[in-house]
């Protein structure tokens, strides 16, 4: 594997590569503007992609949030997640009268090492901020917006759950760019589950279910496509925007998003049990549905 110069820690640079030249208007979405002091680790704004306006949300791994000691270097804390959620809601609001083909896409540029594990975060309720951002993205999707996520660096655990995993389609730079997609590094998994680290390393080479990396997630249906060259990013994103828009126009939204990725996982052989469980439940419910529907 040839290691390439990647984009880890370079969220702002990635925006520059992905968007049409010089179109990035930070902290602005239509008529709404954001206070730059709040959530410095979350970079939001409007760009043009292939000529049309799009909302972009990225992580700034160089930023530190002075108000929250556990939030630094791209960690998504409460301010960041709330800000990202608001960016999504303003996007929905801005295009609410428009038909599907004119609703602006949302591009999530993912490079975050995690959520903030702090005391104040627990007291105030970090889970609401992350959950809130997820719901906002899910709503955007279901209202016809196309949401594309592209992993350029680290996509870790709960931070990836809220910033990435609700997208219609998820792309990722390949492992040559040191992208990291996982819940936890193997050393931590080993320590917590008390499973032998050598065994885990051995298994992780072949079993995508806990191995770290874009290629494994692709097999599981967690990533739609792996991008092999940085310069291919804009083109690939545009391709996916168009594809997803077509599905939404045709009323085939179930082919995208988390559910769509579930189907992919089944197709690609990475998550085969899942579908059979859901089908079993459907079958068994059919046998008793009458009792419940006609109580």
């Amino acid at each position, binding site marked *: 594997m040839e290691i390439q110069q990647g984009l880890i820690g370079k969220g702002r640079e990635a925006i520059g590569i992905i968007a049409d030249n010089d179109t990035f208007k930070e902290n602005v979405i239509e008529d709404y503007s954001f206070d730059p002091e709040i959530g410095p680790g979350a970079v939001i704004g409007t760009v043009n992609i292939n000529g049309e306006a799009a909302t972009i949300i990225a992580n700034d791994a160089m930023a530190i949030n002075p108000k929250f000691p556990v939030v630094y270097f791209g960690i998504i804390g409460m301010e960041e997640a709330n800000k990202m959620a608001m960016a999504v809601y303003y996007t929905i609001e801005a295009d609410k009268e428009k038909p599907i083909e004119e609703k602006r896409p949302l591009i999530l540029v993912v490079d975050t090492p995690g*959520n903030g594990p702090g005391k104040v975060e627990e007291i105030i*309720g*970090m889970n609401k901020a992350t959950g809130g951002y997820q719901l906002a993205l899910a709503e955007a999707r279901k209202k016809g917006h196309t949401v594309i996520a592209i992993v350029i660096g680290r996509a870790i655990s709960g931070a990836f759950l809220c910033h990435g995993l609700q997208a219609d389609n998820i792309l990722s730079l390949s492992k040559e760019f040191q992208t990291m997609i996982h819940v936890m590094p193997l050393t931590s*998994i080993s320590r917590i589950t008390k499973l032998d680290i050598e065994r885990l390393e051995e298994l992780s080479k072949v079993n995508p279910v806990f191995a770290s990396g874009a290629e494994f997630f692709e097999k599981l249906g967690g990533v739609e496509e792996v991008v092999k060259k940085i310069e291919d990013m804009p083109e690939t994103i545009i391709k996916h925007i168009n594809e997803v828009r077509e599905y939404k126009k045709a009323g085939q939204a179930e082919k995208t*998003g988390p559910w769509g990725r579930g189907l992919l996982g089944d197709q690609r052989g990475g998550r085969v049990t899942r579908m059979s469980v859901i089908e079993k439940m459907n079958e068994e419910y059919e046998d008793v549905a009458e009792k419940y*529907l006609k109580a």
Partner: protein
Amino acid sequence: MALNELKFVIKADNPKTINTEYYHFGVVGSGDMEVIMEKKELDGNAEVKIVTPVRGFDKIWELVVTKFVKENQLGDVFIDINDNNATPVIVHMRLRQALSEINKLATVSQKDIWDNMQEKDFVEATARERAIGLVDEGTFTELAGPKDRISSPHLPVLGEAIGYDDGCVTGVGLIGKKPVFVISQEGRFIGGAVGEVHGAKMVGAFKLALKAYEDIMNEYPDSYEERRPAVVISFETGGVRLHESNAGLLAHAEVMDQIQDCRGKIPVFGVIGSKVGCFGGMGFVAAATDVIIMNEQGRLGLTGPEVIEQEMGKDEFDASDKGLIYRTTGGKHKYIMKDCNFLVEDKVEDFREKVQEVLKQPFEEIEKYRRIGSLKLIEEQAELVELAVDVNPGDARDMWKHIGNETADELPELTVEEFLKAVKIR
């Protein structure tokens, strides 16, 4: 590696079969086991299958199960055991308890069983007991339950014990005329953590609830309100199951997506009152529900106490201080912060009655209990975060005092009843 699978065929002198087709008993917790006993034509023999991570004790297993079969004169029975390091005495006890329950079926009514369950402390109840107990008596049908024997395809290769419900009980029941789809997580099975099968069951339950909604809207266009389905999740989980971390993570995203699909259609309840609490990515899911009901022992959050201590140091957060943990993530604190809508007493009955009570309200009213899911709600949360910056709480009590609770120190000592009278919420 794989798990150790043992099979024994035992002939008792005067074998008799059991008086039911199928019976499931137990939870595959650490040091424990589950068993299914089924009637089966075996020429009078009893067949015992054991799946266990333990090696080197095959002989003892044989002795224990042989003794059990012979002393109870069992035949034409298939005994199917999933073990997780249970000692011989626990094995014998569970087998005896299962048989005792089977024998009681003839004399004890389902109503009595349900009534007993209502009296149980929620925190002591198993996931199955909670699922059955949260809906009206006798209405619960389990879906994809242990009978289907769907276990994790990923745990055996890691040498981890499996369970036939993968730590998640799903099914449907009724509260009044409303079909209520229940998801109940078992904290004793790998901490209630979500793997591929567990996650699929959660998603499957939501899908069925949404389908039921469509069917009822079609069937009863004028009277659907009293039949509007609901989803109730009894959370007990640490989040993603690390052994299947990627599948678990993807399942979390799917569940959140389903919750968004339920918006404007069916209410989703989060019920949190069990030992493990609700943490990790499932903390996000809980926050996304319409209504959260907790008891004093329940805990809701993202990060576990040990990790916070590791990150911030023992002086900032001492994970061995249980009082601190409860002030930070416990039911009373979440109630004060409006992160949970209702605080109830400890019995299964108390939770069921609260769900029932809330379900009587019109759907538009129920939606008002939400804490996230719209721009307005997020702006409110953002304000709360800014307040936190101002108050800079060293301890949750600082927030309670700021909100107006002068006797903040005493609040943890009060009973739920006293607390609800005395407390000021955000």
